């Protein structure tokens, strides 16, 4: 029962895929245009976990 509820919830959270032209316009409008001009990026930028564990990971923090 709870699996069914989770599955229905996931369906509701899925959007209709956009065309690529529409996707790029939405990404520019909703994200890129909002980046402050004077924002500085941390040096030697990196972000992520343990790359050796990619093969072991099974969406432990990303089931939805």
């Amino acid at each position, binding site marked *: 029962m709870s699996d069914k509820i989770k599955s229905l919830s996931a369906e509701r959270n899925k959007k209709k895929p956009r065309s690529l032209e529409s996707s790029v316009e939405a990404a520019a409008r909703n994200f890129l245009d909002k980046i402050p001009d004077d924002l500085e990026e941390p040096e030697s930028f990196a972000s992520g976990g343990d790359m050796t564990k990619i093969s072991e990971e099974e*969406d432990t923090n990303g089931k939805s």
Partner: protein
Amino acid sequence: MLATHLDAEKRYTMIRKSTLEVSQRKLSSRSEYASLKLKLIDIDALNMAKKWAKSSMRRVNWEWVEGYSVLKFRYPKRFELAIWVGRELISLTMGRPTYNGTALRLDFIEASPEKPKGLKVVPAVLFVMITYAEALGASQIRVMNPINDAVKKYYESIGLVYVAEEDYLYLRL
């Protein structure tokens, strides 16, 4: 490799390439991103990334050759991006959709330790990623495991929201 897996690999490689083409056109029209060249990860990028290991400025010890090989084999819908400026590799990024496909995860991003100061790469990466996520029908992007507080705060400053229990940031699309 199963035929269905091979079909999915071909199909999503086409979507990834088309995503880079439309994103490149948009970024090329903005002066702060005009020098960036978007490509899929290839052997040239992986060879260039090996040189990062020699830098004392590097913050992680990731092996991109092995990591990319595993991700490519397991996830045909993956997100991947190599950003170049001229002949210099500026950043590598890999991610994948979540189990139900409602979100697209950014699992690893690394900028070159020699990246010119002032060159913005993270907004460009997330912009391309959002474009791909929208094309797949995902309703959220997630940036997994920020490596330190400065990185987490940077993501928050560009609109992402941190989830402490599972150590990721998200942006609703």
